[in-house]
């Protein structure tokens, strides 16, 4: 579990969408070990596809 606060690098997203992204990152880091990078990416991408339409990318 990583407990740090998300620090935005750059964004052109609406605030609510930014919040969705950082919230999902926090949830993913609670669910998965920090070394499970693929599973973390998959979790976030799938939620974004569900919430905001298909075709998202997560690295």
């Amino acid at each position, binding site marked *: 579990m990583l407990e740090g606060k998300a620090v935005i690098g750059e964004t052109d997203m609406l605030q609510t969408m930014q919040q969705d992204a950082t919230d999902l990152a926090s949830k993913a880091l609670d669910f998965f070990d920090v*070394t*499970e*990078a*693929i*599973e*973390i*990416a*998959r979790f*976030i*991408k*799938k939620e974004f*596809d569900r919430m905001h339409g*298909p*075709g*998202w*990318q*997560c*690295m």
Partner: protein
Amino acid sequence: MLEGKAVVRETDMPEGMQSYVMELAHQALDAHEVSDCQSIAHFIKQKLDEAYGPAWNSVVGKDFGSCITHLCGSFIFFRVEMMEFLIFKDGKNFTESREEAIGVLQKARNCD
């Protein structure tokens, strides 16, 4: 400069496009410091946008996980020595797209 041969991990690209992308990777590695992943990625993306139309995505690094949606026939994941390259084109028509979960984990730190 990394001189090693590119090793394809996964791809659905035609052979000719694969060769072109890997040639771009070598050009980028010749032109940029190996630690400058962002410039390497940018070089490859720019060249592919010029050659095959816009909306290419280029991710270069040593340690990352990813989950993407790409246009069918436009995805390659390969390695040149310790550097990993994930290259794909955005698909706006999702009937022609597919999802990939890709990653490579190493003990080395991320480039950023």
